[in-house]
């Protein structure tokens, strides 16, 4: 799998509020936001739905998740991803609660199923940036 053509994921942030997530990924840390008052976790950048607190601190997630839903993309609309087709885009439910977009790597697309336990792995892109992806859980 070539990663040379993939864009630096930081270009897809709406503004600087999501940057800590990508900066954490570059250090191979999976960061999500936590409201200490309500003990609730959020991703991407959010305010707390329960108490309305803004500027929630970013904390490291445990990296374990379960597959929530997924699609396998056969048509490469984005030429950056053309070499990878068919590739999956997957929604996982992190152990801390939030849903998160990712790719499942380390197994065939036909092996992905709902509820499958997965764990985070970090893929450094040749063009800059790091993608947090998930692989089948080892333990």
């Amino acid at each position: 799998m070539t990663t040379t053509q993939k864009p630096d994921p930081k270009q897809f942030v709406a503004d600087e509020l999501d940057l800590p997530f990508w900066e954490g990924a570059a250090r191979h840390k999976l960061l999500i936001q936590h409201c200490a008052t309500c003990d609730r976790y959020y991703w991407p950048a959010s305010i707390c739905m329960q108490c309305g607190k803004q500027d929630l601190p970013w904390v490291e997630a445990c990296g374990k998740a379960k597959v929530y839903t997924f699609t396998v993309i056969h048509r490469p609309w984005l030429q950056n991803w053309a070499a990878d087709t068919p590739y999956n885009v997957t929604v996982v439910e992190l152990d801390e609660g939030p849903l998160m977009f990712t790719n499942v790597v380390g197994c065939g697309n036909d092996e992905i199923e709902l509820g499958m336990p997965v764990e985070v792995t970090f893929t450094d892109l040749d063009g800059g940036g790091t993608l947090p992806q998930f692989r089948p859980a080892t333990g």
Partner: protein
Amino acid sequence: MAIESGKYAIVGLGITKQGKLPDYTTRQVVAWAVKEALDDAGLERKDIDGYIYGHQDPSVVDLRYLGLTPKFSWYMQTGGATASATVMAACGAMEAGLAETVLLVGAHRPWSTRAQIGGHGYGIAQAWGLVSPVASHAFHASRHMGVYGTTPDQLGTVAVVQREHACKRPDAIEYGNPITLEDYYNSPMICAPLRRLDCTRDTDGGVAMIVTTAERARNLKSKPVFIRGLGVGHNIRRWHDKSLYNGLDCATAKESAFRMAGITTADVDVFQCYDAFSINVIMQLEGYGFCNEGEGGPFVMGGDTRLDGRIPTNTGGGQLSGWYVMGYTALSEGLFQMRGQAGETQVKDAEIALVTGHGANAGVQNTWAHGCVVLGK
């Protein structure tokens, strides 16, 4: 307080040729739809005192070119919910006493301009290679299959049934082009589990219609169709309770629309639901209570959305076998059914049509806006 059921009506309906319009500009398509709608209603340009254009490109809002002099001109866009949203905005403006004859227009030329509906830019998930509405709706389909056991046969049957309807309607793009489940499985996989025949296509075309008071509508040339109920919902709610990918936020919309109309699901005679993708039909049959949650697939397989089924659905072929203009397909077919102009797919004695739409992500994928309009004779 809700608007009184039947206080406003939709009169003139103008639909341009749909499909491929490479020799027209978008302004010309808008003007074509407007002329058809005015002629249908027997109204003149000077009668239009409000204008709402369902498009994201303000440069196409050219009242000078259209010969219109309304008191307001708004453009609004919320993807496939745009059509229902413009009806609501028109009713709201009239309820506030700001206008009494509001022209709604949806028009675009994605086929000719090769602009993909919904665009490539799907926010943060694009970093993982997620692009296009079809990938987002595939999230819905995978989840629905995993949780409820919905099958590819059931998705394919949505497409087959709607094609049957289109084959009875010369105004549908796929008229004369029937398909089978075998054709469905032979169509290429786009974003699994969705195949080419699960998807609408990017067609050129325009639609215009006029909303006015019931009183005024009764004195016009075209047969009035009354606005009985209006409802909105938003799937962002379901991001937080993590039921987002199981369905759409029909429940909230249904509650207000059905209360305003004084109806239950059993009163609905025809269902024109937004079908950007086959899975949408299954989710909305469940969401509006035509069947239980998770049973939309078997409901379609059992023939219940056919013309002789429990709830004839997308009787003009829908967007899957017809044309796409940001939700105006379903709204137009609802009007045809209430006016008795649905040709060979006219549902006899239909009194109530339910029309829906959803679209435009609001933060993350599948946080769609949802809207519905209950139409009545």
